[in-house]
Every structure is written in C-alpha cells, then in structure tokens.
C-alpha cells in the first residue's frame, strides 16, 4: 500500500445521511474477482440512468468536481454490507479522504486497508465544509484540515495513523507475532472444525 500524502483539492459534497455500500457499489459489480477498475461503478445507480447515460443532477457528473479527492458526506456513511468493493471504487475513482459526521464500523476499517483516510467531524463543521468551494488541505501528519478561512483539527487513532503514513502491510506486521499466535493456539479451548 502506498503511504498517505497530504491531499489538497476541492471537496465533493454529497449531502445525504445513511449512504449504504449498496449505493456506493451496486451488487451487479461484486461478481468480479479482481480489486482494480471499480471506479467506473462508483454510485452507479445514482450516476447513470437505465441507458447508462450520466444523470446531470448527480454531483459526480458535475464538471466542477472533476479531480476532487475529498468526499464530504452525511452521517453514518458506508452502512450496510461489508463489501470492500465500496472502498476500492472510491479509491479507484480518486477519493483519498472521506469526511462525515460518522461512519459505519466495517466501512471505516476497510478504508485504512486501502489508503483512504476517513475523518469524522462534528455535524456543524461537516455542513460548513460542504459549502466550501476553495480547495482544502488535509494533512494527516499534523491531523489538520486547512480551509481558506480556518484550520480544523481532527482525531485519529495513532495506530491507524501510522498504518496510513507508513503504507504498512498489515499482514507482515502481524506475522511478527507468530510466536504469540502459536502460544494462543496451544491454550485455546475451541477445537478444530474438521
């Protein structure tokens, strides 16, 4: 995974609450066996009509937001299905930061495995950010968001911060604890399935 760099871009406002992962990537695209190329399916049913023409009212079809790397959405973003395809689609489309008042747990965890920084902020601050038209700068190192008029501090778990900054491979880190895993297995009461 690539390490997370400071992001400066305009924001894409998606002013809706409870956006579920079925909307982020509809099920017909879950049949693929690779991780790449999901960006074209992002918000597919909101973005395209039955004839696959772009729906002009949907924010991603507004040329103003082309090249934006920061999505600002409503409360409980990413609820529902555990499909990591949702994160692959956001990332492949070009989003590296998602800001919302809150996130669903599985989606939140999936973000960190794919180099996406999810930031939870107070509802009022999110609503203000949604109105921002100038580029904003997200700095993970200093945990700050700089807007043209303001500097906003955000919280992040130190372990998760390190994962993103270092672009660490989670599994090789874990396998350094192999002895402890083996010890655990020796004292575990739960037997094998087979």
């Amino acid at each position, binding site marked *: 995974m690539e390490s997370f760099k400071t992001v400066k871009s305009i924001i894409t406002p998606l*002013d809706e609450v409870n956006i579920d992962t079925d909307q982020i990537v509809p099920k017909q695209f879950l*049949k693929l066996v690779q991780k790449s190329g999901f960006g074209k399916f992002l918000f597919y049913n909101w973005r395209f009509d039955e004839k696959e023409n772009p729906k002009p009212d949907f924010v991603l079809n507004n040329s103003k937001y082309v090249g934006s790397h920061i999505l600002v959405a409503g409360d409980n973003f990413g609820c529902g*299905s555990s499909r990591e395809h949702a994160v692959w689609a956001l990332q492949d489309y070009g989003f590296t930061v998602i800001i919302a008042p809150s996130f669903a747990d599985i989606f939140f965890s999936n973000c960190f495995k794919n180099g996406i920084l999810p930031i939870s902020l107070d509802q009022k601050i999110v609503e203000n950010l949604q109105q921002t038209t100038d580029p904003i700068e997200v700095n993970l190192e200093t945990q700050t968001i700089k807007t043209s008029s303001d500097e906003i501090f955000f919280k992040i778990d130190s*372990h998760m911060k390190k994962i993103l900054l270092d672009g660490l491979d989670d*599994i090789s880190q874990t396998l350094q604890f192999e002895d402890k895993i083996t010890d655990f297995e020796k004292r575990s009461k*739960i037997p094998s399935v*087979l």
Partner: protein
Amino acid sequence: MGKTLFEKLWASHIVVEKHEGPSLIYVDRHLVHEVTSPQAFEGLRINNRKVRRPDLTIATMDHNVPTNDRSLPILDQTSAIQIQTLEKNCKDFGIKLFDTNSPNQGIVHVIGPQLGITLPGSTIVCGDSHTSTHGAFGALAFGIGTSDVEHVLASQTLWLEKPKSFEIRVEGKRKNPHAVTAKDIVLSIIKNIGTGGGTGTVIEYCGEGITDLSMEQRMTICNMSIEAGARAGLVAPDEKTFDYLRDREYTPKNYESLVDFWRDELKTDSDAKFEKQFILHVDDIVPQVSWGTNPGMTCDVTDSIPSPDEFSKGDLNQKKSVQKALDYMDLKPGTPIVDIKIDRVFIGSCTNARLEDLIEASKVIKGQKVSSTVQAMVVPGSQMVKKQAEEMGLDKIFINANFDWRESGCSMCLGMNPDILSPGERCASTSNRNFEGRQGTGGRTHLVSPVMAAAAAIKGHFVDVRELDLN
C-alpha cells in the same frame, strides 16, 4: 466489577494487547464465500503465503448461485468464473468447501449453526456483515472486509479496537407469538435506536423476550444487529443453545465438557456495567413493515406512511432522506400500510429462511392461493432446510399455493443471481435490507416477517397477520 459476556469473549481471545490502540484477536472460525474472498486468496498468492489454519476455515457458495435447477450450467459467465475461482482457491489452499452439489450447501449463516460449526464462546468472522447471526449462540461473530479476510487466512487473527458493550433488554411477553415474531422485535428495536444506534458497539440481547425465543428466532434478532450499525449481537447461551448444537455433523467430540465450561462462564455478571442500554417492551408490539429505504424506516402494520416532518422530528437531514425514500418507494404520507399492494413476495435470506420460518409461513398459506397479481418464491436457507421442509411436506403446501420452491442461496436478498425485482416492482421480503436497488435496480422492498410476507402473498397487499387464524 463484573464483566459482560462480550468482555469475557474479548478477553479470552486476546493474542496481543498493547497499551493503547487495537488488540490482536484470535479467530476460531472463518467462514468463506465466493464474493468477498477471491481478492484475498489472490493476495496470499502474490505474497507467497498459505492459509494458517485450514482446519478452522469453511467455505460455501451462496451469494451468487442460481436457485433454479442445479444440474443446469450457470449462464452468467462472470458469475460462473467467480464460483470456479472459489473452487480453485479451496483446492489450492486445502479448505473444505460445500459446493452447490453438497447437501451441506446453503447460506453461510444458516449452515454454520446447522452443522455445529458455530460454537458458544468462540470468535467467528466472515466477509459478510450478517455474520452477527452467529452471536445467537454466545459467539463473538462479526463481518469483515476482504483485506481482513486475507489477514485472517494468513494469520488466523485480526487487529481490532475494542467495541463498547450495549445492553438491549427485551421485556415482557408477546400476545400472539405466531403473528408477532422475532423479526418484529428486531425491526422495532432498529426503528427506535436507528440504523446508526449500535455503531461501535456489541449488543447483548437479554430479558424474557429473548430467552423465550427459539434458537432460530434468536438468530433472526442477532442477524439484524448490523442494521442497527452494531459490530455484533449476542445472546447468552442456555440449554436451548446447547441442545440445538448437540449431535450436529461437526459438533466437537468433547462437546459435553465444553458445555459444562460454557454453562458456568458464558454470561454477563450481575454487577457488570454496560456502556449503553435500551429497553423494549414487547407486550404490545405488533407486526412491523418497513416503508422506506433503510431498516429504521419501519412502522406498525396498523399505521400509515408517516410524513417527512412527522418522522424526522425536526432533523432536516433526516427529513430530506425520508422525502427521497418516499419518492423512491412511490408512497404518499397518510397511506395505510394495509392499502399497499405488492407485486412480489420473497421468503428467504439469512434472516428468515430457516425451517421454523418456513413452517410458520406455510400455516398462513395452507389451502390458499397466491393472489393472481403476485409472484411469490421461497428460497430455503440451506439444502438441509430444503430437505427437512420437503420431508414435512411444506414444499407441497407452497407449490400448491403457487409459490416457486427453489434451491438454497442468498437469492433475492441481494439480487446477485438472476432472482431480482424489475424496476418499479414492490416486494414483501423476509430479508434484512430495503436499500435502494438492493433487490434489483428500481425495485421497492418492504421488510416483513415470514408470516406477514405469506399473508401479503395471498391477499395481494399487506394485511395484519394477527387477523388470520394461525393455530
């Protein structure tokens, strides 16, 4: 101070604990299916890693399998490739697979308990959010993404932040337990606490309203914990739990000694403190019907569609989302639920496709016919459920009533296979999510219990199933 059941499960699975940040938690059971695993196996291959514990890993195909004649080839090439990929991955990495020809095939959250793979006191993960189902047995069970599937395959562990403990106490006795079901209890809970009400928590369901339930009903409750945003749902195991798992195909040989241990250990101490609490009184609850595009948008069958103002109680974001939901669902505020006509009925899914669900639904339709304007189907949760139902003659009851009787799979719960709604079609569904387009682009889903779905199939519109004779 005492510990909650969740805290005990957590503590007994810590492999590495640090001063702060996530802990490394051991996984006792890893369930794998075709949709969220291919990229994980590919990751293992790229890094030249093997599966650490194939003996703790079980695979089946459920999300993307057709539910018609199993001897026919899968016509959709992308689906066929995904299914073949799981077969190859299981072969290459030495994992036991219940494929579509196996009598043990079925929805992963139906077969786990049915085969005795799900055990109290264990940790269970799967690349599927409804893994919370297994919590009904006193297991800590939750859904994970594909990166975590790879992590578990390689290390049999996961780094996790400890969730908070949330007690949901279900008090009282339902007046008509055949008509007011576990589904109505859990929909009532979600309606009250909201789809984000459980975020960051593990829910323990307790109280008389829960201990009264059968294991299959408890699974329905725990299954939908994720629809309230919770990481997992739990019920403390009791004799019903231990009886359910006794003598299953994969029940451990030392089961009775495990039961002795679980009986003492797996309960919340009387002086334990939960970080959050909610109480639901079930004496007066009635059958529930969802009307919107998330499971929290639900009301009593005796109610009418609420107005955005009424439902959102002054929250502008909520008001906007209710308006959008009503537009999508093509419903007007003030319309009585029982006046809503339906086109399709789906009895299936990991929420409500177990034997008891089919028995209860069959009582509603026995000797009757599906309304001429409705197309109805039953998709048993597993091939074993299907066989048991057929031995009881339930298939005849459904078929005589003009229901389709299918092979098992996730089917129209998420519509990855050919079982989907057409745009604009309205469905009474026993599944768990009424999200936009979930059952088919443009499709409109109303979540209900199996008996409510069956009654709607007969009448062609929603009815209060309490008005029917179910005994």
